[in-house]
């Protein structure tokens, strides 16, 4: 009897407990990984304020960035406002350009022509996702930048004093809008597809046209999902480094117009980290930017959850 028990326990261990423990461990591992990421980035990023005694307020709200400035000229300045502003505005531009198209495509795929949607557009979107950001950057630099440069030179309403290199906020926003387009499109497509067929059928059966059904029933019902897609697109735009760095002009002044050159948090990290000496204020300030990026990306998640909660309230 007790032998029988033993065998049984052994079997249970082998057939259930062992596997369960292993997968549970790796589930928990993800938490550990996240915490250690936060810990290490924070430990570096906070030293700007703790060791170098810089003011976090200045870091966030001053636009003077010159970490190597000699004491005689006023000492180092690490105001990151230019980068924060640049990141926000370039992502916002990308979002403004991308969202209408992405949502339109998702509607097209789910409602207008599911066939073309599945057979052609879905692969097209997947390929857009797969194109590496350096390629986007490269095309941006060699095709878009000269084009915008010409535009700024020829269009009469553009202030020629601002910037005619073709690099700048608008160019960065355009490149990013192509990059985040698939994210938004595929998530809002999923949101539309996840709607019960019922809604559409009911609406059609009442004599509504397709567009009426889409606008009055489907879009409102899928809105939480679409918003999630938009926030994720925003997060992606915010975090992109190389493609933006290649085309934004990397100017350390607040831009005066969307044609002006600007800078982003990711871009300045990419460019300056290599030449900064570890442990110096310059390097620490760059780490602080990384920490800020991390905090902002966590914020995006919180926002998405808020949207999701609202969505479930409807259901």
């Amino acid at each position, binding site marked *: 009897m007790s032998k029988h028990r033993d065998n049984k326990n052994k079997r*249970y261990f082998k*057939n*259930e407990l062992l596997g*369960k423990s292993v*997968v549970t461990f*790796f*589930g*928990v*591992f*993800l*938490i550990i*990984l*996240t915490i*250690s*990421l936060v810990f*290490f*980035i924070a430990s*570096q990023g906070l030293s700007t304020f703790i060791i170098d005694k810089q003011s976090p307020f200045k870091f966030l709200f001053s636009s003077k960035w010159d970490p190597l400035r000699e004491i005689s000229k006023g000492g180092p300045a690490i105001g990151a406002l230019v980068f924060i502003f640049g990141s926000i505005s370039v992502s916002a531009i990308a979002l403004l350009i991308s969202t209408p*198209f992405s949502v*339109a*495509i998702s*509607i097209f795929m789910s409602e207008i*022509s599911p066939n073309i949607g599945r057979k*052609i*557009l879905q*692969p*097209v979107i*997947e*390929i*857009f*996702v*797969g*194109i*590496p*950001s*350096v*390629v986007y950057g*490269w*095309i941006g630099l060699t095709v878009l930048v000269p084009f915008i440069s010409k535009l700024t030179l020829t269009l009469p309403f553009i202030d020629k004093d601002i910037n005619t290199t073709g690099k700048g906020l608008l160019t960065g926003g355009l490149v990013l809008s*192509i990059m985040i387009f698939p994210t938004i499109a595929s998530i809002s497509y999923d949101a539309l597809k996840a709607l019960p067929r019922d809604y559409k059928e009911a609406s059609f059966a009442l004599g509504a046209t*397709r*567009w*009426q059904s889409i606008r009055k029933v489907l879009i409102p019902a899928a809105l939480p999902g679409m918003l999630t897609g938009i926030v*994720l697109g925003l*997060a992606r735009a*915010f*975090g992109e*480094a190389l493609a933006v760095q290649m085309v934004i002009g990397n100017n350390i002044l607040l831009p005066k117009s969307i044609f002006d050159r600007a800078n982003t948090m*990711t871009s300045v*990290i990419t460019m300056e*980290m290599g030449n900064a000496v*570890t442990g110096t204020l310059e390097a620490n300030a760059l*780490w602080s930017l*990384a920490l800020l*990026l*991390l905090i902002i*990306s*966590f914020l*995006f*998640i919180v926002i998405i959850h808020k949207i999701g909660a609202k969505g479930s309230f409807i259901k």
Partner: protein
Amino acid sequence: MIIKAKVTDRIATAVLYIIATLLILLLILFAGYIIYQGKSKLNLSFLTSEPNSLEAGGGIGPPLFNSIYIVVLSLAITLPIGLSAGIYMAEYAKPTKLTKLIRFSIEALASLPSIVIGLFGFLVFVQKTGWGFNIFSGALAVSILNLPVVTRICEDSIRNVPHSVKEASLAIGATHWQTIIRVLIPCAIPGLVTGLIITSGRVFGEAAALIFTSGVSGYPLDFTNFNPMDSSSPLNPFRPAETLAVFIWKVNSEGTAPDARLVADGASAVLIISVFLFNISSRILGKFLNNKFAGR
């Protein structure tokens, strides 16, 4: 009134068709342009020879190899972890605080900018370990980048297995774990494979996280040396190396070779073609596996 609604409907439909067509055109133009620009470089010697910063005619052999190598390494790291975590989330996770925390971690990791992960890798894998820039650190960094995606894919494909199949196994007296290993995972394979190939494509094109971990340059390799412990062997994971995507970025930002532009064009074309290959193969393989499992 109805007439007006119908006209609106027509217009909206037309606009949507136009946008869809534009999108397809954009991709064709985009890919076509890149491939056209790089076509003069699309030959075997470009694909296999060493980069050259001195003279024209350098190739992308080692960077191409490095990209593939990092994909393989990172899959070897993420697959066991991601599959385990995915199994946990799909099958064992109860709606507890812990599960919520894991879910939040997955989302948080997924939303992190790759450059932040690159910096983390730089700090921990490159500096704290004293390894310096090396492929393994790069693979670890992109693994962090990829882990939430792989976990999600595994979780989803396991969840997508019809509940009835799972019930059948349990009802026969299989334990939960036996059911997972013998029924759920085999059933989930088509979804898993397609998902994994697509994410591999993303690792293949990643650059920001690698600049600070595997480095932006390598040294000459001996492609006849298969001893992974030997420092000139391409299989040595502890050597610094530039991947194809990093290579493009570097050529663009500090290329000195006279044909730098052409080299970047060629490398971009190779990257784009790889993306196509990743996509097509995932489709073909997915279809094949689906058919195989559906018994057709």
